[in-house]
């Protein structure tokens, strides 16, 4: 277990809380990788995954993913995420970054580790009464699809240029991500349209009490300083605003304030938060390593 965040030491320097995420990045982007990994430095995956709007995409992903009662039950019953939500986020983020920017061996190893953990995550959801297995390709596909859909949506809306053709290319390249955790490639949507169709076809989705609780922690994680909390709150509100209407309805969220969702302002919010993130040790250097490899 991690110690409580040392709130007293630096009451105003609330950036400390992002440090696990910074470490996840610096560890995932090796200084001397053996090769350019599963996707390659020219891939759309590399380009999209270094977008500064990624944090926003992450929050949206979690909100959609949590709607699958069985996926949510697996997390709620088997993970210690609540003791350390930021640590849990950092682990997920580290996984995504390692699979993206790590060399082939590192990516394969990360995938194997996740598959091994999933084998032990089994149980019964007490809301639906259904059994679940984390290694079930159907559950894994849902998690994958919700993430990829959120990334495409957020990056197109608030990130750097990602046109329709590149978005399709991205979704197709990401099939490899799903395969790595054990989803057969032929089951994975390989275009934006196929992805949409899949997401709207999945049943039974609902906001269980566990999901609502999880999302409330994501929106207001413990240990944030006052100032950081306000910024984080705004990011959360934007993430909610980007959800499809039916997802918002399940959680009982109202429609977004159009002013809050305006691209320029959201970009400014992301920029301010990202500046704080970049100030943490190693972040700029890791980003530079990615950039230099993409330019080679």
């Amino acid at each position: 277990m991690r110690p409580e965040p040392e709130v007293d030491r630096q009451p105003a320097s609330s950036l400390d809380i992002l440090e696990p995420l910074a470490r996840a990045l610096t560890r995932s982007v090796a200084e001397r990788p053996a090769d350019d990994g599963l996707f390659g430095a020219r891939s759309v995956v590399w380009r999209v995954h270094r977008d500064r709007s990624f944090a926003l995409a992450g929050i949206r992903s979690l909100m959609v993913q949590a709607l699958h009662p069985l996926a949510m039950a697996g997390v709620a019953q088997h993970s210690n995420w609540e003791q350390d939500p930021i640590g849990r986020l950092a682990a997920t983020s580290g996984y995504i970054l390692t699979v993206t920017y790590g060399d082939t061996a590192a990516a394969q190893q990360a995938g194997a580790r996740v598959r091994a953990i999933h084998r032990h995550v089994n149980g019964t959801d007490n809301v639906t009464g259904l059994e679940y297995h984390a290694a079930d390709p159907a559950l894994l596909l849902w998690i994958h699809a919700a993430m990829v859909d959120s990334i495409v949506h957020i990056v197109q809306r608030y990130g750097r240029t990602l046109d329709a053709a590149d978005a399709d290319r991205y979704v197709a390249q990401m099939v490899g991500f799903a395969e790595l955790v054990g989803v057969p490639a032929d089951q994975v949507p390989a275009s934006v349209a196929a992805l949409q169709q899949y997401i709207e076809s999945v049943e039974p989705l609902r906001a269980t009490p566990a999901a609502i609780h999880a999302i409330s922690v994501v929106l207001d994680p413990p240990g944030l300083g006052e100032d950081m909390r306000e910024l984080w709150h705004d990011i959360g509100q934007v993430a909610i605003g980007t959800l499809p209407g039916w997802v918002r309805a399940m959680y009982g969220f109202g429609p977004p304030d159009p002013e809050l969702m305006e691209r320029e302002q959201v970009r400014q919010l992301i920029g301010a938060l990202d500046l704080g993130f970049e100030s943490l040790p190693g972040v700029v250097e890791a980003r530079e390593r990615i950039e230099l490899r993409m330019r080679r």
Partner: protein
Amino acid sequence: MARSPQLLFASVERRTELRHDLALRSAEEVAEELGYMKGVLMKLGQMASYVDEDMPATFRAAMGRLQHNAPPMSPELASSVIAAELGGAPERVFAKWDAWPFAAASIGQVHRAITKDGKAVAVKVQYPGIARSITSDLRNVGLLRRVVSAAFPGMDTQSFIEELGERLREEVDYVLEADNQELFAQYYEGHPVIHVPHVVRDLSTARVLTTELVSGERFEKVLEWDQHERNMAAETINRFVSRSLYRLHAFNGDPHPGNYLFHGHGRVSFLDFGLTKHFNDQDLVPLVEALRCLVIEKDGDCFRSALERAGFLKPGAPVPTETVVDRFGLFYSTVLQDAPMTITPAFASAIVRRFFDAKGPLAPYSDVPRTYVILQRINLGLYAVLGSLNATANWRRIGQELWPFVLGPASTPIGEAEARWELERAGRNLAPVG
């Protein structure tokens, strides 16, 4: 623990090594690096680098790191800005053009070039799109307020943001900077130790600023010079700040040592007038009064009422006048005695700490009115520079030469040379035209 002002400077030092391998190749990449609040917040950090005592450690680190990491423009991108602004590719507009910059500026970079009539010049080229993006970022006051109050707790957020906004809006307009620089360059024309490079107007626009190229030693080098040389350099910097204030009613608000180039024997070139503040007589009167009351009259009540009129102290604060004299008097301690005094780094730190002392007996009643925000910055910056140089001088005598209520005689060899220059200057200005 007290941080030395030298360390404060380290965080805003111009980067020496430009990351050409990461050069920005398009306006989109510029926006990614410097748009969306980044440029604005970095500038804010730079402006507040003396306000540093209260700045949370991570923010301080942030500012330092980010100063070092804004990459330059690629030659093609810089060239496209020149073409858009000056109507032709740099190789055609100039006789010689150095495709890679030799220095960074906060919202641009500086190239060496030779004009068609053979002048060596420094060409400051602004990042494309940055002016628009800064203007938009400054409009998001709500977000700025949050970040400022997070990064600088205890600071008057409102006046700081207003001042920041005004200065930044000015800074993106190189025409304004050109006007300011020319004001200084013309005033100091022929000065024995102070040099300000002239602007080349027909090669300057709102986004490109061409000035005479100056070569000289950087501040870090001067720190290795002997103490006599350092004292002379310090004296010149001190004279530049007070002469600009008293005679030009203007000063360069960016006192960091990267803006100085040193030539030995006290000769200093002053660069970068992007942050110039102008004063009027009313702004100056209470400051001069406070100085006169404390230093000459030694009258506490008179001192106090001048501070109140300037807005530094709330009228009727329940604090004894001796406390006011004791707390505010520290800022005048270099000129209280008519004797040589060494400004050590420790003394400079003490000044900075006192200035930002949120717990002192006067804290609830004191404030920095917006008019003086930049002036305070200069003063603190000046102390930091003089402290780094460990400079000794009779600061009182030097100051008195310009105080309107004394106008004392020249007190040093530099002062004498300056007096001769001033006479010549007056003669030149009085001479009939034609």
